[in-house]
């Protein structure tokens, strides 16, 4: 026997006829989906910022045991030895592509709330920095002159912190610095940093050695050799790792926390929304007892009825899912900032809604529809014809 399927039109019409109910249930689902999409977008934006920081062919050398640049220290001698390693690529001038840097945190006042301040990363760099990080470009103003009190501010700092706009003056370590330009690091973590001249900044912050050393590798596969040599050398005792991996590790903790909190919220809210969907679908089934019985009497199989109600429930929730995604979309690109616990410094990032995240949101609404629709649909399909026909 070929099974007849109920036309989709039947379900659509039903949803339209009971439009208040449809809208209310879909509205509940929409809010759940919106919260889901937004938390995923927040976690995605945060990790995307840090993951896009750093290159796969750069190695960052930190003191053994240090988990961030802030805690690390590399002596001038160690930096010299590590730079001369054969695994390090050389520039056009024949010099090794090596960049010793100093990293400190300074406390800056936020523009949105003059009473609040956050820790901002200050990086002492050499002119070579743009050779090792070619993706970073000057956006406004001009380059800093080495040996002067001039600094560059990352593209996202100007709006967030006092004194970080081009032309403004910034007080750090008891000295005034002039912001002569701002750079664009393509939305990476460097966009939340202040860059100044290395040899000028070292004495200002009372540092004798460097914090880290960034090396361009001739081949990323040679990291293991480099690691073995640097760890074994008693004058160096430092640990190189791929720059990109280093920043990814820094994002893991906080992104994990955002995802876990979001998951908790969404699971609990989804439980509430499923209960609402169950209610609606039970009511839909209840008020159509006679219709269902008639369909069964006409020869539609219980299976076809089950499928039809499931489809109706999924449709209902999918409307909610689409609404939820639309509700969340305007938040895409809104920038925010937080202190990354792993580095104790401010990172600015944006809500990023990707097609994948929207797909997860829609998928979640379909799952809600299946869960919320299954029991009522089964109840509808199992009803004996005679009883259903007699019902009010």
């Amino acid at each position, binding site marked *: 026997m070929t099974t007849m399927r109920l036309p989709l039109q039947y379900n659509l019409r039903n949803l339209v006829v009971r439009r208040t109910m449809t809208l209310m249930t879909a*509205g509940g689902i929409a*809010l759940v989906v919106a919260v889901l999409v937004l938390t995923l977008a927040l976690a995605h934006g945060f990790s995307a910022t840090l993951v896009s920081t750093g290159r796969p062919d750069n190695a960052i050398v930190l003191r053994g045991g240090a988990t961030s640049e802030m805690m690390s220290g590399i002596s001038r001698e160690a930096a010299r030895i590590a730079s001369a390693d054969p695994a390090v690529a050389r520039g056009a001038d024949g010099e090794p592509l090596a960049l010793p840097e100093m990293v*400190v*945190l300074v406390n800056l006042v936020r523009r949105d709330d003059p009473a*609040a301040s956050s820790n901002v990363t200050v990086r002492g760099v050499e002119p070579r920095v743009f050779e090792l990080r070619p993706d970073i470009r000057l956006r406004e103003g001009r380059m800093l002159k080495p040996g002067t009190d001039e600094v560059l501010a990352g593209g996202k700092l100007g709006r967030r912190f006092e004194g970080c706009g081009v032309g403004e003056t910034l007080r750090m370590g*008891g000295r005034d610095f002039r912001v002569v330009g701002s750079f664009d690091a393509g939305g990476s973590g460097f966009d939340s940093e202040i860059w100044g001249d290395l040899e000028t900044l070292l004495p200002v912050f009372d540092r004798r050695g460097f914090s880290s050393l960034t090396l361009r590798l001739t081949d990323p596969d040679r990291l293991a050799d480099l690691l073995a040599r640097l760890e074994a050398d008693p004058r160096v005792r430092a640990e190189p790792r791929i720059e990109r991996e280093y920043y990814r590790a820094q994002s893991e903790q906080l992104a994990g926390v955002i995802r876990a909190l979001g998951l908790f919220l969404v699971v609990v809210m989804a439980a509430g929304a499923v209960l*609402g969907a169950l*209610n609606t679908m039970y009511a839909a089934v209840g008020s159509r007892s006679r219709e269902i019985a008639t369909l069964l009497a006409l020869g539609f199989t219980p299976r076809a009825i089950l499928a039809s109600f499931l489809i109706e429930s999924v449709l209902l929730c999918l409307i909610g899912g689409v609404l939820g995604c639309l509700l969340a979309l305007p938040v895409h690109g809104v920038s925010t900032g*937080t202190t990354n616990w792993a580095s104790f410094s401010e990172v600015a990032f944006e809500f990023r809604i990707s097609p994948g995240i929207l797909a997860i949101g829609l998928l979640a609404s379909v799952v809600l529809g299946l869960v919320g629709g299954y029991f009522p649909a089964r109840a509808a399909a199992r009803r004996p014809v005679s009883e259903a026909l007699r019902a009010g």
Partner: protein
Amino acid sequence: MTRFLPFILRNTLRNKRRTLLTVLSIVVSLFLFCTLRTVITSLAASLESASSARLITRRSTSLTFFLPISYRDRLTQIPGVEDVSWATWFGGVYIDERNFFAQFAIDPLRYFEIYPEYRLTAEEKDTFRRERTACIVGEKLARKYGFEVGDRITLRGTIFEGVWDFTVCGVAQPATPDLDTNWLLFNGEYLNQSLGDWGQVGTFVLKLADPDRAGDVARIVDETFANSAAETKTETEKAFQLGFISMLGNIQAVIYSLGTAIVIAIVLVSMNTMMMAARERTREIAVLKALGFADRAVVGLVLAESLLITLVGGVLGAGLARLVFDLSDFTAGGFFPRFTVTDGTVAQALGIALFLGVVSGVAPAWNAARLRIVDALRHTG
């Protein structure tokens, strides 16, 4: 109205499944609401325990820089400062990175005099002063890892290189339950000597003679060290801790918007249910009216039914939150000293339940009042 109570009860129980589903969805949503609001109240409570009678002085550049210990003598001489102590963030790793808790190298002599809310016996304090590698663990940390007096704790330094061994010489008991005791404090002389008579500290703690003069004293302190090699930034302990919370971004706004989304979602669900319930009973309501019940009474019956459902949901939801968080000693991995659902939160949840009951009952009640008996009796539904 009380004589109608059995009638109202019967009505809510007529479609048991629907009532149960509605009550459950309200329970779930209000449980979530209570959880979110408790995040805010717990943050506020942990700030309450910070004193405004103490000032924290740190390097103005940022917390990651140190101040010379020699500043202590000059700080002591500033009028309005009664006592001075210091602490340095150690940032070591216990076994591995996941076991995060605060560790400070502290002034062995004065620290516990300035923080009397951490209770120690005279003997414990005495040992702490004498033993170079002695440490004190907070009560909560001791409970978490089962630390006891005499235990050895090894930390791997991240800021201060090397492996550091400590011996527990006491467990500090908090004077009030809101105090955070998820920490380890060790004799600062150990750090100082290990770094070759280092002579620096992270922060100074100033005990004020008169808390009302906190602003003036803080200003004088910062002026004293202005234009020196290490300029200071001084603020009350409360402001200092608030600074950490504000660094996380605008948590409050996020929580409020989530809370609103949740409340709107349950309003939709429960309104839907009440409208379904009333629609099913169009005929009955007409019968009641035909029997001579006034419109007001009919409205009252419909509203009362809706209120009953939402209030039961509210009581269960808030009760569940209380039960779960107050009994389980939940702290979000030590982030909150205490995660307690306050009476205010319960009251707000019940308020929302009441609001829900009224909002979702109003439309069906209004329909019931407007109903024309003749039309309704003809209605099949």
